């Protein structure tokens, strides 16, 4: 239990059923106790979520700056609009720390200025999203797992440390309609390259040699179909054939199996092929039983960003609107590549956190071009921005829609009102200012 700072106890406020955005779990049962402008307790939250909540500090800075000088909002909107409308190749990037409403407005701006829009989901998407486009997927909302799953395989993921409440709320330990005894009603297998905390808690741990996940998944496909596999698979992958045969048997004979995969499977070299293999394995298992393969999900609202970009343009990320209509080509139109090649000549960055994972060459180019940045804390990117907007913190200070790892939409319950505009309001202001400049065809 965290120790609450000394505050005036008489002014405590409570927000119930708040949604925690720390990881892809989006736990929506958090009870926040708020004293003044601090969160003093986050009941039900895991240690990661609680640290996030208790670490919240109200930002003092409001309004907007142009070249580091505070200006009235209208002036900042006009300046931002001019930068984006005048650009030959503007990019709109970020969106993973945004609610659906702001994401919708961001795509609208990209459309209006003929820019390229990409989400930070674009980075991860290049693996599991491409696999989805190749073979499809077999997924379910997490409640199906809670209520029905009797076999759970955790592959390249360590939820005990990365998604601490996943087990209790949704998966290995959750009790449900056909799993009244929770953990006892399930068999849990961990496949990973080293023994993690999750592996220790599992019924079985299969240690795969780094980079050999695909071989193991392909071997399981064979075993499930009754194809004879050579003993040498053990030496090649680190997992003996009899253990793989046992896992294959369990997969075939379970009632409802789920393979959750994490970055250990999807974000390694050949990640797309790994996810494809896991997906095809799950699809083929449906000849015998119900079986699913799903990502664990990541921090923030990247799933929501992907959804919004997809419904507005038809494509999930890396969309170029420069010809007046959406074109999609991950790699060519991924923001990291566009910046690395020095193609973009202006940028709208929604949440500066989104740029930290970009390659150095991309960051170097970003430093050379005019940038409009929206952020809730005083970051380097914000301070260096041509036009900087101090916006409300989406996770604590705004309402709006966020999307869980399994695509279930939830509405945020803000702990605080913010003296700053929301991302949505700022983006709307910029959009209106762009319209005022006139058409760009």
């Amino acid at each position, binding site marked *: 239990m965290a120790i609450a700072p000394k505050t005036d106890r008489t002014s405590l406020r409570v927000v119930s*059923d708040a949604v925690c955005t720390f990881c892809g779990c989006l736990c*929506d*049962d958090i009870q926040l106790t708020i004293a003044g402008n601090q969160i003093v307790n986050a009941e039900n939250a895991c240690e990661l979520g609680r640290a996030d909540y208790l670490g919240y500090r109200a930002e003092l800075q409001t309004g907007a700056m142009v070249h580091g000088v505070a200006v009235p909002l209208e002036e900042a909107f006009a300046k931002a609009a001019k930068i984006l409308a005048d650009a030959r190749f503007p990019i709109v990037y970020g969106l993973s720390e945004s609610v*659906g409403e702001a994401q*919708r407005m961001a795509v609208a701006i990209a*459309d209006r200025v003929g820019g390229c829009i990409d989400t930070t989901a674009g980075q991860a998407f290049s693996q599991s*999203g491409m696999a*989805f*486009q*190749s*073979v*499809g*997927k*077999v*997924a*379910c*909302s*997490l*409640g*199906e797992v*809670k*209520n*029905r799953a009797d076999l759970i395989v955790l592959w390249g993921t360590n939820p005990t440390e990365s998604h601490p409440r996943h087990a209790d*709320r*949704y998966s290995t330990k959750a009790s*449900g*309609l*056909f799993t009244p005894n929770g953990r006892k009603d399930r068999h849990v297998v961990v496949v990973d390259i080293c023994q993690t905390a999750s592996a220790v808690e599992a019924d079985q741990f299969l240690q795969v040699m780094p980079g050999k996940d695909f071989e193991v998944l392909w071997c399981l496909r064979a075993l499930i179909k009754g194809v004879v596999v050579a003993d040498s698979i053990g030496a090649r992958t680190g997992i003996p054939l009899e253990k793989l045969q046992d896992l294959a048997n369990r997969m075939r004979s379970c*009632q*409802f199996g789920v393979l959750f995969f994490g970055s250990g499977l999807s974000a390694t070299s050949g990640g797309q092929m790994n996810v494809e293999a896991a997906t095809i394995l799950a*699809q083929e298992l*449906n000849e015998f*039983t*119900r079986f*699913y393969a799903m990502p664990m999900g990541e921090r923030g609202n990247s799933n929501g960003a*992907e*959804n*919004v970009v*997809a*419904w*507005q*343009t*038809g*494509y*999930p990320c890396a969309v170029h*609107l420069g*010809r*007046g*209509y*959406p074109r*999609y080509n991950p790699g060519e139109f991924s923001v990291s590549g566009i910046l690395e090649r020095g193609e973009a000549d202006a940028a709208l960055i929604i949440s500066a956190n989104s740029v930290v994972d970009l390659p150095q060459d991309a960051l170097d180019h970003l430093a050379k071009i005019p940038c409009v940045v929206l952020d809730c804390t005083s970051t380097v990117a914000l301070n260096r921005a041509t036009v900087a907007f101090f916006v409300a913190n989406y996770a604590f200070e705004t309402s709006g*829609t966020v*999307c869980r790892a399994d*695509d*279930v*939409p*939830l*509405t945020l319950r803000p702990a605080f009102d913010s003296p700053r505009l929301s991302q949505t309001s700022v983006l709307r202001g910029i959009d209106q200012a762009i319209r005022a400049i006139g*058409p760009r*065809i």
Partner: protein
Amino acid sequence: MTLIRIKNGTVYDPANGRNGVVMDLWIRDASIVDGPTPEELPDQTIDASGLVIMPGGVDMHCHIVGPKVNMARKMRPEDHRDAPPVPRTTITRSGTTGSVPSSFATGYLYAGLGYTTAVDAAIPPLSALHAHEEFLDTPILDKAFLVLMGNNYYALKALAEGEYERARAFTGWLLESSRGYGIKVVNPGGVEAWKTGWDNIHSLDEKVPHLDCTPRMILKGLAQIAMDLHLPHSVHVHCNNLGLPGNSATTLASMEALEGRRAHLTHIQFHSYGGDSNDQGSFCSDVPALASWINAHPEVTVDVGQVLFGPTTSMTGDGPLGYFLHKVTGRKWTSSDTELEAGCGIVPIVYKEKSFVHGLQWAIGLEWYLLVNDPWQVVMSTDHPNGASFVSYPEIIALLMDRNYRNEILKRVHPRVRERCVLADLDREYSLQEIAIISRAGPARILGMTNKGHLGAGADADITIYTPDTDRRRMFELPRAVIKSGRVVVDRGEIREDILGRVWHVRPGYDSGVLPDIRKWFDAFVTVRFDNYGVDKSCLAGMGAVSPCAPKTTRKGSVS
């Protein structure tokens, strides 16, 4: 206040008995009004001399928003890339087309065809918020969605336990909280059985695993609930055994199981197959028998789910069907189940003229339009995008209005098709009035949307003006003008104004005594908190409109 006069148009308004009457129509703001006093002059006059006027089209069964549709978009970039894009203009947003257009493109394409209302037929209530957000990015159209309930575990359990009142109250609560329009049943019990590990449910009296409940009980129960809640629309049913040879027996049994209750059977084409389920070669049409049942039962209506040749995307709330299609086509497959509520399957598909099965599906759809005597009982649909995209509606109209054209295509399809159906013997041709019924007046009446589908005083001013043309396809592909809510939104195929339509939903009321039990259910089995479930009014962004639930559906809707 704006007053518009549409002068001298030839009006087809079957709901008001106008069959090609040359007359003036008057619009005040967003509604149709009686002609004003002679001294009042219109602000605008549209000369429709020589032009055909109909109410705006109403698509009562399509898949245009929500997680399933969006997953199809994400899974199939090739579907968009191969299709002509929609470029942005100074007033409209850009988009992509193909079998699953992007949201803005969907609105513009429908409007361009003269359609002004569309109902998404399958939203899992857990994802209602997503559907509503997407509605806000689907312009021009008035919209609504049906809530998937035929495999909702709580509802099934209540019906199984003989607790009809609880099931009814739950339904009322579910429709209100999701801001849905009506009850959709997809493969009653079959999706739940699939999730439990079975392959499917095959007959009306087979029990759903773990539940003392059968498809028959689900159909009867939910049909009765729709009636008792006085919902504007009856229960909307996708029967068991979709797509299987010999499924007409199941369809007939489902019709009988309703025992005189109001119901709408959707994409009936996919449920009208004779033959042996184990022998694809025995496949034949059973439309004559089913249609004659419909002809004798005015309380039951159907929409067709017409198949047209070409590539499209199959998407369904019927999980086991998705798997079946994946096995049949060998194409990529998405399955996505929603906890204790629903399933979902998505598979790309190509309907081929030379395929015996596809040709027969095409013929069976047409037989439905031609064998149901009363056009008010049969609605034009492609089950977009399952049978084909909604942009194919003009093609269907041409096939129905011109038997020579129909017979030409029939000659081109697989030769065995003619032996296995009666289409070649059907001489009937639709009139413009009948087209107006199956594409707007009928669906509006079946949906209980009293202000849609007609041009009488008080109706919403949603109007399509066509240039008469013996080439019916061309006539209906490119309306001369489309008016939505009294605004000219389309002029010769160009979007002139980008407006946002309303989202219709119901508030049937319910016994709040059920809430503690639902809350308990949520606490135990649902991964979203009871208080975080459902859609807040603010999520409709002021576009919400409530369709009244009343024993007589003559009252007008009110805007919330």
